[in-house]
């Protein structure tokens, strides 16, 4: 299911523009909360997506790693896609996949983003299904700037 963009939500382009397994954010919004930013992203689970045909054949399950992909894309939407400042994932401090997302469902990822000492951001994300069940929890650190080959 894909919602039409609602007031206050930004609908994303059909393609991501950088290497990505899929468009993992279809709409997003963010608002400041003191020193933090509350970032919310949504993406539908589409069983006809080629990725889901391969995960798994005959049983489309939104791969847990796509929740990580949603977080990375949501951070870039909120803080910028320009390579010089794009949020780059540094550490997945904790990831827990708690419930499956199946064809027809929708992931809503609510992220509290705080600036990290020394630059970058810390993100604490909770992903829920349409029925409100928590599907995933992620704590992650992001750096600002292009991905390093170091």
């Amino acid at each position, binding site marked *: 299911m894909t919602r039409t963009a609602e007031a206050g939500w930004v609908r994303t382009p059909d393609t991501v*523009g*950088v290497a990505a397994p899929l468009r993992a954010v279809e709409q997003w919004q963010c608002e400041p909360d003191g020193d933090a930013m509350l970032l919310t992203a949504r993406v539908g689970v589409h069983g006809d997506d080629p990725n889901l045909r*391969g995960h798994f054949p005959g049983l489309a399950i939104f791969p847990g790693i796509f929740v990580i992909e949603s977080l990375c894309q949501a951070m870039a939407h909120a803080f910028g896609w320009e390579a010089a400042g794009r949020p780059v994932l540094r550490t997945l401090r904790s990831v827990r996949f708690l419930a499956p997302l199946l064809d027809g469902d929708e992931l809503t990822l609510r992220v509290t983003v705080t600036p990290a000492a020394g630059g970058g951001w810390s993100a604490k994300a909770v992903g829920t299904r349409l029925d409100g069940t928590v599907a995933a929890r992620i704590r992650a650190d992001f750096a600002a700037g292009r991905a390093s080959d170091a």
Partner: protein
Amino acid sequence: MREHADVRAVLPQRFPLLLVDRVLELESGRRISTIKAVTGTDACFADLPEGAQNQDYSYPYSLIVESFGQSAALLWLDGRLPTPGDDQVLMFVGATDFSFEGTAHPGDVLRHEVRIDSVIADTAFASGEIWVADRRLATVATLVATRRPVRPSEPGGPVLEPA
């Protein structure tokens, strides 16, 4: 178990999410070394616009995590083929301190070095490192996978039973 046909026989994932090409070494129940070649024709690069810059071709971190997880699954499964009628699938359920030190681009070959640290009931705990040649890309403190039953349900289609 070494070649891609062997990998396909053991893992349920298929294109474009079957992300292990070959097993280099397997020490049963202890460690595995696998590779995944990143090429410009990988599906994740298909929608890049003309004129995209080199940094836009960074192989997605999410797929690096998946490739490492599939390598851990190959270690745990140890060449065991799926049993007909077995309704359980091996699921990646969590990780701690998965840290990236760099990224990969088309032409790079990811090498996953995975160790199994413990197995408790149907849940395995693994750790390891990811390399491109002599350049370390990531360290993984803990990756957790478990076997969960998948069964058809009425009327809403298949569901995954809670752990």
